[in-house]
């Protein structure tokens, strides 16, 4: 298992190399560079050229790229053009804020989405089930930036219960961003759990279990759930990417200084090291969550675990 994890992590390196190369090329093709933004109205040809040498922007793109990669492999994310500070410092501060929101959102979604999905599947004709279907459909169709604005209007402006922006109020300021960010995610988890549970409940082994006299509770939570969880886990892992995309929007709506905002600012300022830093962190996050999904598969499903073992023996 350890060997498998290491292999998967190594497979990430070419992905990061290609990704950074593409982004590097895209950003270097843009008209105008960071110097005009740093200098602003004081920009002159002469000052611009001097600054360009200072930042290393006068070198060919390929040289710049190789230089960046050499540093990246040593764990150095480079120096931000605009902030003139190591990208890593900024990233770590911003990442913490983002991680809180994402973590809170995931916790909320998984702990609500799965149970609601199960309950809805066990009573497929009930009013509750119909309600969850409507809610789920609305959930996947809701533009989260609009939802964020509506939540601010209701809970901050009208009721005054929760802060509308920033992160200065501790856990209370995480509530609205987390709901906003996780809304689509939760609806997706719920819908997937419901449909895979419905599928599982119709299987023959469920009828067998019921015929043996196993209690309904055990039939649902032991026999059906174990088999139905796989698609849900896939969604939980796969949608982490979507969740990270949503971070940009959520942070814009709630004016939270997180990684999403950093990325947008950096793109606007043509701050290539900063953009790359954010994207690399996000790509790693997505890849690691995919890896975790695969490991959880093995944990839940003995058949897949056996496959890994067989593979390890062969290797």
């Amino acid at each position, binding site marked *: 298992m350890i060997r498998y994890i290491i292999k998967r992590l190594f497979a990430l390196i070419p*992905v990061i190399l*290609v*990704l950074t190369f*593409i*982004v590097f090329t*895209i*950003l270097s*093709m*843009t*008209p105008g560079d960071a110097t005009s933004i740093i200098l602003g109205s004081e920009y002159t040809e002469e000052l611009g050229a001097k600054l360009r040498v200072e930042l290393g922007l006068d070198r060919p793109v390929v040289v710049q790229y190789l230089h960046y990669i050499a540093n990246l492999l040593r764990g150095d994310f480079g120096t931000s053009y605009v902030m003139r500070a190591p990208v890593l410092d900024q990233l770590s501060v911003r990442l913490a804020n983002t991680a809180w929101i994402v973590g809170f959102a995931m916790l909320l979604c998984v702990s609500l989405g799965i149970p609601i999905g199960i309950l809805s599947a066990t009573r*497929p004709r009930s009013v509750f089930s119909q309600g969850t279907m409507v809610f789920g*459909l*609305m959930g*996947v*169709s*809701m*533009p989260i*930036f*609009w939802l964020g*604005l*509506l939540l*601010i*209007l209701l809970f901050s*402006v009208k009721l005054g219960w929760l802060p509308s922006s920033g992160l200065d109020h501790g856990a209370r300021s995480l509530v609205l961003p987390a709901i906003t960010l996780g809304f689509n995610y939760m609806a997706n988890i719920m819908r997937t759990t419901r*449909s895979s549970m*419905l*599928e599982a409940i119709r299987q023959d082994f469920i009828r067998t279990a019921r015929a043996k006299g196993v209690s309904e509770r055990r039939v649902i939570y032991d026999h059906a759930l174990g088999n139905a969880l796989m698609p849900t886990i896939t969604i939980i892992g796969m949608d982490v*990417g*979507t*969740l*990270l*995309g*949503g971070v*940009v*929007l959520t942070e*814009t709506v709630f004016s939270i200084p997180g990684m999403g905002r950093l*990325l*947008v600012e950096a*793109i*606007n300022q043509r701050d290539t090291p900063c*953009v790359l830093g954010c*994207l690399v962190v*996000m*790509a790693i996050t*997505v*890849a690691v969550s995919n890896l975790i999904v695969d490991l959880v598969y093995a944990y839940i499903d003995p058949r897949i675990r056996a496959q890994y073992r067989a593979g390890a023996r062969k290797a």
Partner: protein
Amino acid sequence: MQVTSTARPFATKKEFYAQFRKKSIAQELWLRFLKNKTAVMGLVIFCVIVAVAITAPWIADYDTVVIKIHIVDRLQPPSMKHWFGTDELGRDILARIVHGAQVSLLIGISAIFVSLLVGLVLGGAAGYYGGKTDSVIMRAMDVFLCLPDVLLALAIVAAFGNTKLNLIIAIGLAFSPKFSRVVRAAVMSVRDNEYIEAARSIGARDNRIIYRHVLPNCIGPIIVQVTLYVANAILTIAALSFIGLGIQPPTPEWGNMLASGRTFMRDFPHIVAAPGLAIFFTILALNLLGDGLRDTLDPRLKH
């Protein structure tokens, strides 16, 4: 035994034979689709939105109503004259929503057309040839799948500027890895059928097999994904514009209307109501339609 029939005698020969004729596949699918109430609702809503988008120039004039500033009328609540009220520059929100539909649909549908093209070529090749071609193409796609598609589109738009054409290309490219996967899976599922082998055995070339035999048979899942991804693309345009990297004002777009209305929403909530509802209903309609199509084209998945 005496046969008693309550059926009306057939007026013509044609009518008589019609009862024995088998319904065509398209007819049957259409009838199955019509049974799905929510899907039909989705189709109806979507058709209304498309109709509104097409007739936008007749509903409100672009130059005098949609983008011209009427500062006296600013921030008016909904009334008979302005159904959804007016925005911070005194423009009729309804008119802007209607013209925004045109922008969103045009970009959304063209973007998915771009990703469909890329997906058909790359995913088709990967799925049909398999082996090395497959692993090279799919590894390349995996690189892009590591990034959320919003961010991919964001980077491309930021680099090349946010004209409508660039937005189409950016969003189209951002979605193509996912499309390639869908096409690949679909192609792989029909690749080993006997009729493909038969086509090959009579000497058909790969191109002909792919376009005449493989693709028509995996059109079902692709149509479903197209519907769902148009929804996604429209959401992405709105998101990009909301961040300020998409369609720029004064061109009306639902996302940028929300972004500019945000500042005033505390006192004038109507300003963010209509654009949000417009996005919501468009996405909802396409999701209903997509789910319905999936149930129609692949009844096994239906619950």
